[in-house]
């Protein structure tokens, strides 16, 4: 937190008071930054696709070997015929190039495991995951940061917030999920134990999985935001703001929070990317279709097309979320714009 060029380091004062006098050399063109980052993302995806394809190809037991082990009627001739039909008799590089060229032409391919086009499977899974993970993340963020702010501004409440955070982090997701199911679905009968609604939005089906998923993330946000706010509240510009007579709520929300939010924002961006890959445990316990379960089934079932596209999609969302967080940080912290 070293002031540069005589600009006060309190970003709020800097933003509010000195915006018009900001040196022009501090701003790199946003389009250039975006172009560079998007090119990096494309390159990463290309490398990732090759590595993932190679790893899946190297996994022991191709689908035909699995079928042979389970069906005594499959003869050697059947095995050779089916292997050729699925293209598994081709060398690895040939298969990868065929897959990549299909993808570049817009073909996501066909899922062997679900006998459906990959695109038709991904969309509903992604929407289901976004509904679950998006809601859980939003709730965890709001509640976690709220608890963090409470702990930082009211030191007496800190032990309670700490206890909640420790419980949230220590409790395994599958265990919490089962507890919630026993309490609210089996014993009280208020909410469904899992699955999705046959018709409509099925909000009731979201309550328990969202609560389960949010609990674990809430703890992390509460602890990080509390620590960050506690550190920020000791900064000189906070003392200045208080000395000027600003009310404590204004000090907290206008002066301290935007600075303290930076690390939490970064964690949230990483969480958003990770959650796009689905919450496998939560989806499994609550029997909810989603990206996590789809990806797991695809990898375990040796469904190369589905696994690869799902992996690349998750990677893309993670990288875009990180990019979004970086841009948001640049907007919040002017020092980043100097770099």
């Amino acid at each position, binding site marked *: 937190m070293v002031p540069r060029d005589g600009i006060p380091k309190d970003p709020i004062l800097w933003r509010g008071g000195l915006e018009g006098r900001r040196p022009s050399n501090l701003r790199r063109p946003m389009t250039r930054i975006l172009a560079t980052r998007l090119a990096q993302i494309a390159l990463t995806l290309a490398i990732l696709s090759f590595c993932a394809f190679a790893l899946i190809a190297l996994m022991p037991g191709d689908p035909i070997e699995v079928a042979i082990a389970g069906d005594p009627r499959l003869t050697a001739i059947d095995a050779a015929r089916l292997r050729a039909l699925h293209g598994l008799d081709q060398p690895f590089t040939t298969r990868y190039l065929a897959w990549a060229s299909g993808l570049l032409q817009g073909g996501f391919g066909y899922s062997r495991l679900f006998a459906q086009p990959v695109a038709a499977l991904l969309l509903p899974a992604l929407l289901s995951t976004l509904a679950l993970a998006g809601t859980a993340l939003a709730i965890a963020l709001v509640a976690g940061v709220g608890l963090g702010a409470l702990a930082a501004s009211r030191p007496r409440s800190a032990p309670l917030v700490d206890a909640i955070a420790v419980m949230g982090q220590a409790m395994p997701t599958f265990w919490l999920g089962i507890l919630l199911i026993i309490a609210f679905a089996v014993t009280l*009968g208020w909410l469904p134990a899992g699955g999705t609604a046959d018709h409509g939005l*099925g909000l009731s089906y979201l309550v328990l999985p969202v609560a389960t998923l949010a609990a674990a993330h809430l703890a992390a946000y509460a602890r990080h935001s509390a620590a960050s706010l506690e550190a920020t509240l000791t900064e000189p510009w906070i003392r200045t703001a208080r000395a000027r007579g600003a009310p404590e709520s204004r000090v907290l929300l206008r002066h301290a929070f935007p600075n303290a939010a930076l690390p939490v924002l970064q964690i949230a961006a990483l969480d958003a990317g990770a959650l796009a890959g689905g919450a496998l445990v939560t989806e*499994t316990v609550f029997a909810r279709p989603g990206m996590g379960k789809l990806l797991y089934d695809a990898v375990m079932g040796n469904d190369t097309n589905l696994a690869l596209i799902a992996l690349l999609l998750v990677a893309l969302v993670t990288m875009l979320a990180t990019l979004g967080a970086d841009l948001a940080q640049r907007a919040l912290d002017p020092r980043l714009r100097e770099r």
Partner: protein
Amino acid sequence: MRLRVGALLLAVAAPAAAQPRDTLTIGITQYPSTFHPNIENMAAKSYVLGFARRPLTAYGADWRLACLTCETLPSIENGLAERETTPDGKAGIRVTYRLREGLRWGDGTPVSSDDLRFAWEAGRDAATGFGPAEFYRSAYELIVVDPRTVTLRFDRVTFEYASMGDFQPLPAHIERERWQADPRTYRTRTAYDTETTNPGLWNGPWRITDVRPGASVTLDRNPAWNGEAPAFRRITIRTVENTPALEAQLLAGQVDMIAGELGLPIEQAIALERRTGNRFRFLFQPGLIYEHLDVRLDQPPLSDRRLRQALLLATDRRTITERLFAGRQPIANTGVNPLDPMHDADVRQWPFDLARARALLDEAGWTPGPDGIRRNAAGERLSLEFMTTAGNRGREAVQQVLQGMWRAAGIEARIRNEPPRVFFAETLSHRRFQGLALFAWISAPESVPRSALNSDEIPREATNWSGQNFGGYRNAEMDVLTQTIPEQLDVARRREMWRRLQAIYAEDLPAIPLWFRSDAHVWPQWLEGVRPTGHLNVSTLWAEEWRVR
């Protein structure tokens, strides 16, 4: 505000309310990878399609073959089966099937000989990608006699000539054009997977009306069905792979029953029965799932038959089944189930006898060492690698118990487990296990274990690792029996051959028999008429008989 919260809670609680009794929701643990009856072979598909389409023949709950869409089961006696010589001079047989009158697809189109012809043509074409093709290779000609009658000619005579297995009518009016366009890509364009809710695909009591990949399948009554009227207007099959979650959905009333064919592990079902009293009905149906230990027979020390016998004598199977499975799983003496008509009750048995096990090991030259583990004359420890599927809690528990029991006889078992895919597709099929492998076989009634016991079926690279004689068992008499039993049409003679096969098995122990697994069926008290079979033909093939009490 409180009122709003209350209203919201009521609103969200509504879907969990009780369902009317003309619907049935079933929980299973697997989702079908395809809905095409002839592409891939998996239990979940068989279970779901049992409601929606019917094969020509199937084995019933009494383990006897019966017609489902045909009128009369062909036999030599009724003249619908005739022995003949094939054009290339081999012994062959021709069988004639007549489709049941009034059988129609869901769109009203009659099920006809053309549908059988199309199924046969598609299966005969290697490019189509149907699974096992032996049936289609053997059925070298299909003759359409009339719109409801076909004759199939086979180039091999077996006692199972009347069983059509997976062969069944496919809707030619929907599928033939797609198949003819390009047989190689037919499996990705079949209407069964691209238009699963097309009523013309289904000829059973229900037809599929909604599909949620990985989650659920909904079936509604098929108005074109002319058989016994089903009791349920709608059947929903939910896939919940995690069995505690499946149990929770049952207890919460979200699913009415759990299918035994694809449901709870027996130990979980036993615990559930104890906890829930008479809230549900439980049936533990012994079946053809044969839990056993495959043995690496072509290398020491297990190549010595006395050692295999000692292992079995040192295994207290009765205690294991009583303690772990509440005595619900019958002990196996060979791979032939006691419910099978060819089972020989007098076959040699190996009840737990630790003293005899020790004596046999002494006789084989394995004497106790200082640590209790036996050693041979060369000083080698009697230590066996013991594998099974990692993550299968039931099997892992059995494995621990067996390890302890064998130690008492001076045999060390080194546990090394692998994920199922690696275990089955690599380790077993490529014969990379070194000692013992714990897993299960499933088969059909009177299924000759040729693939597991004939020496031609030892997997090797030259045969693409096909065959299931993983242990490398070689016995000339067993080779002859597994080859000739299928060709013997006389039941009495065949029974004698089966008796001999079981006698050799019980003496040689090419695998260590443990028990036959039971399927745990969990039904609501108000449901009746479900008849579990315990074999590959699932109970849903007779689901129109299910009733509300």
